[in-house]
């Protein structure tokens, strides 16, 4: 019998999200420039809630240093103090296109292996030996 650790499903989701979080952020910026909190809202609306919301900031900083995104300050659409908005650069657009292609290929290959072709819900029932000792 296999026992699933408590929260193991959440942990796997979190690990998977961490692997593609940069692409998700690039894709969200490709729609329109956004500020930090808007990324979290968009991810949550898509069902991809982050364990720690702030983890997007080191990632955004790394992408900014790499020239994939650029930033500027502008008043927030919801009012209040000006926010730091991120927009996509040409290098970011190219990286997103490449990342999408890699993801599609990976998802197809992984999907083929993980496809539920064999019914795994029923446990194997060992056959009773016929005949026996008296």
């Amino acid at each position, binding site marked *: 019998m296999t026992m699933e650790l408590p929260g193991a499903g959440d942990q796997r989701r979190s690990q998977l999200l961490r692997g593609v979080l940069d692409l998700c952020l690039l894709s969200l910026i490709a729609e329109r420039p956004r500020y930090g909190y808007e990324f979290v809202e968009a991810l949550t609306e898509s069902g991809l809630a982050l364990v720690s919301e*702030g*983890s997007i*900031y*080191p990632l955004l900083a790394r992408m900014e240093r790499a020239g994939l995104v650029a930033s500027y300050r502008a008043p927030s659409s919801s009012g209040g103090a000006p926010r730091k908005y991120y927009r996509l650069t040409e290098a970011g657009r190219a990286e997103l296109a490449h990342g999408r292609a890699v993801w599609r290929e990976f998802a197809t290959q992984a999907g083929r292996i993980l496809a539920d072709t064999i019914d795994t819900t029923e446990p194997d029932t060992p056959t009773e030996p016929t005949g026996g000792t008296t």
Partner: protein
Amino acid sequence: MTIERVLAVCRSNWEYRGIDEASVREMLDELTAHLEDAAAAGRSPQDVVGDDVPAFAASWARARVPLSRRLVRMAAMVSFTAGVLLLLSHLTRWTLGVGVTPGRLAFWLGIAVVTVALELRRGSLGLGKGWLVGLVVGVPAALATERLLGDEPLFLVPLWATLLLALPGLAYAHAERRASRDT
């Protein structure tokens, strides 16, 4: 943990990790806005930064500025602090050369190590707790070291060396002030 405490811990971490003033301000503004938005939506600061705030701050600092640049700034700041402390000694004793004894060295090193360790975990100590660290850590460290090693000066620091120590930090402060005026 309150929003104020999270911001204080992040500020201390970024400053000690050699992030320039303008960047620290920008990162704090960005984080403050996020924490306030999250609070308005009913989420706690821990939901934003996780349980380990220094680790969060450190990872952002590493991503924001390369280590080489941070190390140069950190070295300049350490050198500047040493220069200012020595300059105060020159002025209070009205001398061109300050003898550094083992006790004096232990006093400042003890205070520096404990202050940095505490401020990385809890944010700025403030003046009152800073004095307390001096009293609880610095004085015993100085007395114990002098008892063990004596009070003969280890070396003499001339005034020109003191000024030289303070120079890189002053240059940084000037450059950063100019940069923040321009932005």
